[in-house]
């Protein structure tokens, strides 16, 4: 069997196991897996903009929160079923990305990063302000529903989608063009590449996943409040996962999500108070010691194809 066939077979096996998982796993197990899927969506989406184009999105969790609120409001106030509400969450996030991205992506590196940093705070402020709609600081409750298992599947499908999209982009000329933005934006423009438009497309794509994931999470938890869906910790975790696994690769964010989620569960249950400190330390360590991440290093060392 060729290497490619073997890889696809392995992938199919993993998918089969994951599909059958809810049948034999405990409630906690399904919830945990659901969270891993969520992190894969978040990390891979962040990778689309920051890993490929090099534009560091520091407030990416804003899209998660926007999707969460959009989805929750539609379910709680407009009686929508949760699946269309989740998709609407994705749409809401993309719209937000359009509004913010269109002006902000024109900014060079650090300016863009800071603009995104502020986005999070602003959304939180807006949510508090429009209390009537969002429940403000008191949060929003959704009608009770035990849909963890279907949500597991939808989240899993989303994770698969984002990974697939990443693969498609990285193997296309569109993806190459995104990378030239990271490599040398001035040269890219001189070669006729409309960097503004490309950045915007990547940015919009990177917002959809988190938006959907946010709405799904809101539905699963049954309750959201500003702090739970706009936490800075989520952005950090996203970033660390991608850095650790390998930014700019296809499977790096997936690897990072799985490894760091497991690590986080272990650490968090034992040392709940130190966990952001630990994560801060991990970011520092990864940035200084292995900025390319595990897969990034392997890729260079063993000349692996970019689709790793």
């Amino acid at each position: 069997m060729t290497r490619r066939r073997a890889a696809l077979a392995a992938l199919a096996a993993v998918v089969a196991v994951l599909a059958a998982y809810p049948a034999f796993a405990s409630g906690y197990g399904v919830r945990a897996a659901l969270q891993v899927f969520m992190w894969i969506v978040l990390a891979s989406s962040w990778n689309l903009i920051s890993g490929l184009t090099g534009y560091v999105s520091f407030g990416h969790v804003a899209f998660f929160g926007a999707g969460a609120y959009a989805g929750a409001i539609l379910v709680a106030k407009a009686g929508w079923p949760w699946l269309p509400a989740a998709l609407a969450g994705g749409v809401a996030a993309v719209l937000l990305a359009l509004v913010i991205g269109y002006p902000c992506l024109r900014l060079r590196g650090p300016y863009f990063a800071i603009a995104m940093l502020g986005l999070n705070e602003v959304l939180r402020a807006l949510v508090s302000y429009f209390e009537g709609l969002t429940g403000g600081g008191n949060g929003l409750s959704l009608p009770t529903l035990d849909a963890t298992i279907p949500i597991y599947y939808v989240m899993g499908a989303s994770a698969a989608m984002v990974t697939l999209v990443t693969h498609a982009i990285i193997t296309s000329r569109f993806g190459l063009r995104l990378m030239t933005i990271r490599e040398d934006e001035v040269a890219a423009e001189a070669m006729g590449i409309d960097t503004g438009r490309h950045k915007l497309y990547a940015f919009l794509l990177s917002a959809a996943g988190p938006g959907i994931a946010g709405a799904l999470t809101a539905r699963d938890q049954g309750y959201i409040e500003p702090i739970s869906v706009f936490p800075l910790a989520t952005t950090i975790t996203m970033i660390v996962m991608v850095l650790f696994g390998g930014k700019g690769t296809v499977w790096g964010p997936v690897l990072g999500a799985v490894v760091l989620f497991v690590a986080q569960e272990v650490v968090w249950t034992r040392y709940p108070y130190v966990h952001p400190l630990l994560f801060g330390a991990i970011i520092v360590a990864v940035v200084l010691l292995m900025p390319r991440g595990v897969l990034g290093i392997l890729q260079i060392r063993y000349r692996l194809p970019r689709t790793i």
Partner: protein
Amino acid sequence: MLGQVVISGILSGALYAMVALGLALIFGVMRIINVAHGPLLMLGAYTTYFLYSALGVNPYLTVPVSMLVLFVVGVLLERTLVFRVVDAPELSSLLLTFGISIALVNLAQLLFTSDLRAVEYLTGSWVVGPFALSKSRLVAFVFAGALTGLAFLFLGWTKLGKAIRATSQSREVAMVCGINVQRIHLITFGLAAALAAAGGALIAVIVAIQPEMGQIWTFKSFLVIVLGGAGNYPGALLGGVLLGLIEQVASLFLTTQLSEVVAYVLLVVILLVRPTGLLGGRQT
């Protein structure tokens, strides 16, 4: 009414300017966005708080101490971590200072808990004509003005200050002129931390102290720099006052929460229209 707003704006503007000057220095000299700037301010506030509650002294006397403590912290951070990303791509320095900022905030949460603290020293306002001036804000203004003035004198008239400005303009030329650029980076970072700490110390008397208090300051400092122009140090003064004024005016019509939104929209608009800042500066 308008007069009150203008005065309030100028009072807070000086504080913004002083803290932002620190960020501007780091950006100008080292080309690094110090996302950990806010947490440094926060640590300055806590230093003042603890000195005040332990020794019962006039908190304003602790300003130099806070500045000194954070100068040392800044130098240590630069010496151990930040110096490694000075020549790295922007992503690395952003993430590194981001990581440091998260670690510092969490450290504060662990050591000091998230309980709100306050330094209740100077409350109430002086009434001057038709205006009510918050005492603590007025004193903060005086200190901030003095410290910023001193900072500019330092930059403009001392040998070290000039070396810092030279490095900020061109690192290569500075090196050729015999300036020890590593040392300049060290001192600049420490100085910036000290300025942030001064801001924190002064703010400690005005607002509640908690580990997350610095976050919004990082953002506003950046807004100030954008307003005044990157690498343009006097611009930070103008930017600070401008931000103060705009915030106060906005608060007439909107709640304080929304004034943050105003600041953000302002940032985006300025960056779109004039990315080099109102006074003109360097684009990255």
